[in-house]
């Protein structure tokens, strides 16, 4: 321990000071070279198609925008595991840190540390409104997603009947807020629809399948199932398919295109509400660069040829990718994730 502790403490030199070990740090990534900005993104969980697609979008942006894109996710969807990674990014003196927090409140303190270290802090995918983040890169508004899901469910079910929701993490903030919107919208627009149950399967596909099956059994007259996240969306569709109830029980969900493709094609899933996740990754990286370069956002931004007009709401400091995308069997093959 003596060896590291003997090095002088650098607590008061937030970047720019050019201490010996900071130099060592930068040589670690020779590719970074000249003035390339380091934009780091911490997803909720690694290895799931959704965030890996965001990573792909971020990488594409890195090439196009000339930035260094860093991506590192925890092995479990856990706030504690995320903060460790955030801390290592602070140590790497990235220019912008973007987080999709598992628990927004939990993330707030360490984000404040990052800001204090001179790092620009953003959130993407899931907001941490109480934190010091300067901007939230939103895939679609909470209202948009909740309404989209409800509308699709209503269309599939014929606007009446019983339905249930298979959610994932019990404490996932964004899922819970979407569910709140779904309840509200259904009550207003579709009085014939009745939400009978919300269950939580964690990030486990098989558990989602089993729970969806149990729900269908508990409510034989159930005609709709919502898979609230990317692991439960194929799970509920599979349950319907296995039970031989295609056409009787309709499912919609937030599923990634590749995982939903077989179900959309055989009809066990009617639609998936999502957005272009790769574009979201690209937008996230772009927003990171803007922040790192201290460039403000315009009300409408030309991000790339695919995203010529991204709206920015100054009141909520939210950059909005656009309206949610409805993925059906007709367009599912356009996506490669």
């Amino acid at each position: 321990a003596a060896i590291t502790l003997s090095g002088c403490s650098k607590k008061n030199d937030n970047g720019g000071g050019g201490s010996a070990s900071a130099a060592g740090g930068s040589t670690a990534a020779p590719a970074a070279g000249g003035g390339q900005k380091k934009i780091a993104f911490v997803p909720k969980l690694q290895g799931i198609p959704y965030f890996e697609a965001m990573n792909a979008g971020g990488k594409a942006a890195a090439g196009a925008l000339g930035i260094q894109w860093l991506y590192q996710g925890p092995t479990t969807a856990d706030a504690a595991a995320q903060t460790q990674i955030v801390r290592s990014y602070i140590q790497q003196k990235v220019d912008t840190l973007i987080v999709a927090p598992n628990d927004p409140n939990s993330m707030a303190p360490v984000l404040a540390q990052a800001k204090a270290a001179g790092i620009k802090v953003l959130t993407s995918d899931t907001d941490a409104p109480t934190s010091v983040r300067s901007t939230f890169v939103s895939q679609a508004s909470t209202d948009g997603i909740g309404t989209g899901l409800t509308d699709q469910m209503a269309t599939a079910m014929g606007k009446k009947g019983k339905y249930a929701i298979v959610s994932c993490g019990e404490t996932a903030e964004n899922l819970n807020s979407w569910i709140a919107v779904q309840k509200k919208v259904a009550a207003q627009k579709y009085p014939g629809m009745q939400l009978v149950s919300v269950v939580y399967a964690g990030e486990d596909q098989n558990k989602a399948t089993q729970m969806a099956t149990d729900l269908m059994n508990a409510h034989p007259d159930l005609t709709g199932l919502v898979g609230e996240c990317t692991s439960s969306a194929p799970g509920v569709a599979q349950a319907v398919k296995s039970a031989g109830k295609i056409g009787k029980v309709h499912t919609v969900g937030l599923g990634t295109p590749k995982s939903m493709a077989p179900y959309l094609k055989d009809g066990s899933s009617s639609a998936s509400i999502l957005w272009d996740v790769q574009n979201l990754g690209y937008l996230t990286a772009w927003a990171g660069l803007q922040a790192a370069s201290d460039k403000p956002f315009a009300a409408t931004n030309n991000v790339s040829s695919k995203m010529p007009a991204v709206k920015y709401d100054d009141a909520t400091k939210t950059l909005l990718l656009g309206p949610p995308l409805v993925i059906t069997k007709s367009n599912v093959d356009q996506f490669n994730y």
Partner: protein
Amino acid sequence: MTAQLETREPSTAKVARRILPSPVTGQEWVLGAVLVALWVILSFTTPAFATSGSWQPLLASVAPVAVMGVGMTAVIITGGIDVSVGGAMMVTGVTTAKMLVDQDVSLPVAVLLAMALGAVLGLVNGLLIAYGHVHAIIITFGTANVLQFVGRQIFNSQTVNGIPDTLDFFSRGENGRTLGIPHSFVLTLVIAVLAWIYLRHMRGGRHLYAIGGDPLAARLAGIRVQRYVVLTYAVTGLLVGLAAVFTIASGTSTLDQSIGSGQELAVIAAVVIGGTSITGGRGSVLGTVLGALLVQTVSSGVTQLGWPSQLSDFFVGLAIAIAVGADLLRQRTRQQRTGQQP
């Protein structure tokens, strides 16, 4: 002894008498009764419970836990434990899924591959435990972490998409069932019965009990303790491979990194609910299968009754406490009857 002492022909009356303790333990009767009671209650309270649409998936989801439980029962009977089955399931699962997608391997090849790979992983555990002279829980905590790493490396941060329906035979659709029972569960029962016969009637099986009862005495009785220990972990690994196949078969066409997570505790729970003594020397696979059924019935029941799904674990905990508590109580009264002080 036969050389020196003339042996009487065992009289038929004596042979007919109970030679072994009863084939079904008290714990298993209790579990069976509780299960039946639960099923009856659930059938009345949630009408759909007794339909095939309900119990077919239930049996299909019991199969992986129960089949791993068979191996885990053997491991625990020898006085060991394996907390790395979740990690092993991840590694075998992702490898098999990749082979299905990339190589388009056939059903038998996929199954053999999964089981062989699982057996190799189990073998490593077994060798480390038997020859490293380290408590099984420590070694398998270690290998659990290593396997998590290996599994994730193979996943390479992606899910495995577009898994073909090669494995449908095990639980999906009409040709995945016989007499309405998913083949994965049928196979689990077959394996459980074979294991039951092995544990009860074959020399090797009895030796496992002896090893769990007193490893030193087992060695003195000429039992090759280390070899059996290695064997039980290897067999457990093999069954983990099979469980991974079942899981893929009953899952969606994508496989993600959640495969296997939390399975070690689920399997251990099924084994201990089934009456196998965690200290070794006593236990039966029949109880384990019943234990697995009980756990799944409880969690399905909670969802079907419309109670908050988060409550199901509470009842699982309660089930463990009651099942093991009943077992303890029975042992204690038996001890009192025979006038022994603990």
